[in-house]
């Protein structure tokens, strides 16, 4: 299956990062058309009909989320989640650098649809270059009258602010993001109330991922039917797959959802050095590993991956070759979650800390008898007990490595320790 560029249009059209280039490619025409001729509810209706699902990981229907925003008076907000921190995910980074206006136009359309005058783009703290590029795009658009007050003489105001996070993975979780945006400690909040009702500064707020919003202008341009012609019925449209790990050509690949993994792997040049595939982490550190045997013909859409017992999430596929020890992989994801746990709830804070301690023993050749069983027990004690998904995601790779790659623990449990045999040279 060839790549199909809806979001990564710069790959087809050349540089889209400047406002001039983006406008030459029809940029901001959809925003102008919407503001001039469409009612806000019509924009929501188109997005709803398109079946667009959130690209940040949860896959929640975007149009439905917009429709949750109540009609009461007072300010409401659109927040763009650009806190791309999932290991192996680098799609928002490319969109922000290469096609920032398409995301901005999408955010402006979202703002128009829900009646927000203010858009915050919350960027990962390390996104210095991305933020500079984005800020320039915002400034250019504002100067050109495409953002700001009284757009096209219709009395519509949309201001965009680019905000830097402070480098916390948890701030990709929408309520933690909002807390961080408000200046508080980035910790998730209790839901309900959901942000669409009580969000930023206590006001209705739509939080959408960068890729999600970049899909919106094409949907408004070509209509819901066109969009549904791509992908599957449950997961319409294209998806930017971030492929990393042991492949010849790691990178972003945009393909219709439902594409078999085999075709994506071919595009990425196959497993490197002619080695055999061992497993795939379909959503960075946050989804159970899928063994090679089960993954090759797996269709990459949310339903199919979930059926296989894993999660497509943000579709950041980490490909692991036959030399990798999956216990070591689990140790690495655990170290990540131990570092990134916000500390709010005890099962996640203490559970990831404990898992990490046990994995360090295993990897360090200091295994104690029963450590493998202990890992299982700790995971079981965290299961379903955490405040937010982070603590649940932290269990995914360790649990699947124990279940499907138990032999990888044998030597470690015997006290061998060590790194995987075939890590990067």
């Amino acid at each position: 299956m060839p790549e199909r560029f809806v979001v990564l249009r710069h790959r087809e059209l050349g540089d889209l990062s400047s406002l001039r280039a983006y406008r030459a490619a029809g940029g901001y025409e959809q925003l102008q058309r919407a503001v001039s001729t469409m009612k806000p509810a019509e924009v929501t209706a188109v997005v709803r009909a398109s079946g667009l699902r959130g690209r940040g990981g949860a896959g929640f229907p975007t149009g439905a989320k917009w429709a949750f925003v109540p009609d009461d008076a007072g300010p409401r907000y659109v927040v763009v989640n650009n806190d791309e921190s999932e290991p192996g995910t680098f799609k928002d980074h490319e969109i922000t650098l290469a096609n920032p206006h398409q995301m901005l136009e999408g955010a402006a359309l979202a703002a128009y649809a829900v009646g927000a005058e203010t858009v915050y783009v919350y960027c990962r703290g390390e996104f210095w270059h991305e933020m500079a590029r984005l800020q320039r795009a915002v400034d250019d658009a504002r100067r050109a009258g495409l953002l700001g007050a009284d757009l096209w003489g219709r009395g519509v105001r949309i201001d965009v602010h680019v905000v830097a996070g402070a480098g916390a993975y948890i701030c990709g979780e929408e309520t933690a993001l909002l807390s961080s945006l408000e200046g508080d400690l980035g910790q998730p909040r209790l839901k309900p109330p959901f942000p669409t009702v009580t969000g930023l500064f206590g006001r209705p707020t739509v939080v959408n991922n960068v890729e999600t919003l970049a899909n919106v202008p094409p949907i408004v341009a070509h209509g819901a039917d066109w969009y549904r012609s791509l992908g599957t019925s449950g997961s319409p449209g294209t998806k930017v797959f971030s492929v990393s790990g042991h492949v010849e050509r790691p990178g972003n690949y945009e393909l219709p959802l439902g594409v078999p993994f085999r075709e994506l792997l071919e595009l990425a040049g196959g497993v490197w050095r002619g080695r055999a595939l061992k497993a795939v982490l379909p959503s960075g550190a946050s989804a159970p590993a899928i063994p090679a045997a089960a993954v090759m013909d797996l269709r990459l859409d949310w339903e199919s991956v979930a059926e296989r017992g894993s999660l497509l999430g943000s579709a950041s596929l980490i490909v692991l070759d036959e030399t990798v020890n999956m216990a070591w992989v689990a140790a690495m994801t655990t170290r990540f979650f131990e570092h990134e746990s916000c500390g709010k709830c005890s099962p996640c804070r203490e559970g990831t800390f404990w898992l990490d301690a046990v994995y360090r023993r295993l990897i360090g050749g200091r295994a104690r008898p029963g450590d493998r069983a202990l890992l299982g027990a700790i995971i079981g004690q965290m299961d379903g007990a955490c405040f937010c998904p982070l603590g649940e995601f932290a269990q995914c790779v360790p649990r699947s490595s124990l279940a499907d790659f138990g032999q990888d623990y044998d030597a470690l449990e015997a006290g061998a320790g060590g790194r995987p045999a075939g890590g990067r040279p």
Partner: protein
Amino acid sequence: MSEERVTLTIDGIVLQVDPGTNLVDAAHEAGIEIPIFCHHPYLEPVGMCRMCLVEVGLPAVDPATGAAEQGPDGAPVVRFGPKLVAGCTALACEGMVVRTGTPAVSAQRRAVLEFLLTSHPLDCPVCDKGGECPLQNLTMRYGPGTSRFVWAEKYRFPKPVPIGPLVVLDRERCVLCARCVRFQEELAGDPVLGFESRARGMEIVSYSDPPFRSVFSGNTTDICPVGALTTVDFRFQARPWEVVAVPGVCVHCAVGCNLAYDIRHGRVERVMPRRNDEVNEIWLCDKGRFGHHFASAPDRLRSPLVRREGRLVEATWDEALAAVADGLAAVRNAHGAAAVGGIAGDHLPNEDLYVFGRFLRAVVGTNNVDHLPGLCRDDTVLRAGVGAGTRWADVGSGTTVLVVGLDVEEEAPLLFLHLHRARRRGARLVVLSGRPSKLDGLAAAVLRYRYGEEEAVAATLVAAALPGGREVRARRADGGALSAAVAAIGEARDLMVLFGHEAQRAGLVPALAALVAGTGHVGRPNNGLVAVGRHANAQGAADMGVLPDWLPGTVPFTDQEGCRRLAAAWPGPVPTARGLEAAAMLAGGVRALMVAGTDPVGAGSAVADTLMGLDLLVVQELFLTATARQAHVVLPALSAPERDGTFTNCMRRVQRFSAAVRPDGLGRPDWQILRDVAVRMGVSEPYASAGDVLQEITRLVPGYSGLAPAALGAVPPDQPQDIVLPFAPLTAARDVEYLGTAYENRFGAGWVWPVADGGDTHRGPPPAPPAVMADLTPEPATPPADAMLLVPVPLLYDRGTMLEASLVLRPLVPRPYVAVCPSDAQRLGLVHGTAVCVRAPGGSARALLRVVEGVPPGCALAPDGLAWTTPVVTLVQGRRYAPVSIEAAGA
């Protein structure tokens, strides 16, 4: 509750709760424990610790018909979710079924406890919380017996760090429940704590400078579910199971917080709150908690002193009592009874104050009776006081609270906590004051009077707020504050007016009484006046008739019936001549003076020389105060924790306390001293105990007639009802895992004497508005060009005799300072921190200059009660304020 209660089933028990009740609280009502760490019934739920996970099922609904599904037996089908649910954040709803005892729930509790203990140092043997520690108790109840965590891999923090001057933080013990953080933000109104960092490295930090700047910091140690927060006062002093808790009432302000003295080996080891939902809930301010050392202070008077050859020397009680009796008789014989007078302090208990008045009136035969500082000087409270049944928990939306001439945080801290919470519930606060206070930040409107024009500004507000009130334009631009205040008062369903000494001295009380009466806000709960004195029994002093023109029960001394009633029970008639006020007595109006529990010389309201000229000065005191040093006879008295008695708080709640420690020395309670003097004078007094006095009070003092010992000892219906003796240990009566280490109230929540429906005949008509209502505020009296107005202000932590022994609080007591606004500082050419000399009509004193935004221009605020070389009241010659000059010292 207008909404219907919802019915749910918890472990087979069917119960009804208010909608919005979470499952932990609902289960607690049913007597079922859902264990918690982060949740606290007084705080908003957060769902952090995950200890309260339970199985929750909801009635199944047929999606097609919308009707409840029914099983084959006709019972509704209940479906349980796949995951456990946090009981603190899940709300009870109709038909819900909760299971707390299933294997899944038990396993999860074990899991959470094991998690929490992985990072815990397990240093219970040296932990002050041991014995009353929720983590310890819940681990014993629900936890695993052992841990699989490797000891050496525990997360380590350097051991305890002071997080504030009074509280120490052990980060290894902390389970990061945020109770302290949320208490400070949600209840105390001092959001000075927060989390820093994340994951296991997360820790509690204080963001304020100085750290943990809050007068409520000690409460965090009560609700901390582990030993992470401990007080500097109690650390390593005793184990909780070694102490015996004796119920008491705080002596430090007019709120009358219920507390318990935890006693070991006859010593107060710590002070803990005792729950009383209508007074202090389960909280104490830091002054009440840490200011308990006065009882065992090394400089307490331990023996009577008699002046011989110009010096006070120790004497026996016999000698001292004889000296007093003979001295009083001599003065009375030579100059008449009117040459004798008495001044009492309003922190003495009701029993002592009653006997004080009775002694002077019926034994000596004079109406020269007064008390200091004396907030309630007439029957205003009787006629317009806040209605019985007032509950702070009910003060919220629809209620306006007007606070006049009162710095709530400094003068009655718990009221600040209540007002802060009332505002969070939607109450509107209006502040009328002469200077900034922390309450300003919470107020819907802040009205400032200039010192000197208080009455006119108050009258303007009252005139505008009364029904049919005139449209009043503020003379000065006030940013709409006046109209906002008038609106807040006019739209209020309930109106409470709190006033303090500053309002009373400025003569604002009649206008305030007229306001509540004229707007119909009297005689109902949560409506009316609250006189907030500075001492524990300011209200009781007036109630007991320690006033020259009022008899007990605020009966006018001219009231024939009242006098007859008293005379029938007293050893002599009530004198008919009007008595002298304290100021007149201190200015030389009498030849012999009895002073009990007050220090007019130290407080600057008397000049030592005048007292030196008296024929007889008798002082009943705990310490050798400045006044006592001038006395002919000094009689050692007992402090509240050393004896029993009752206080009447600012909401007229009469509360009893009992003796907690054995006095060290020969001191006697003041009522007993006066009885013994009377006996020496040939009058037999019928009291053997404070209880006997209280019985006479209930018989003879109108208003207090409903006060039976049973009323005092009544316990709220939602608290343990078993009958306990006053001295039975309270230790068991606690729910540490749910409420914290505050004691339940088994000793009685007190009794409020009624204002509107007591059936007493002497109650007059409601107060009328003052005759003169100024529409416009007059020009203030301008002080000379370079003069400043020195205004004495009260501070919570000062060098008062009752705090002097509490060394833990000493770092919080500032050095003497005067605060001026930046423009005045600039005009004076002085900068913040300069040592200055304050020259006043009454002398001069050295102080540090503080430049503080918000101080009224032209004013220098001077906290009284610090280590001033000349007391501030002396500087202003006992007046409310005085013009002074301020210049750099040492020039």
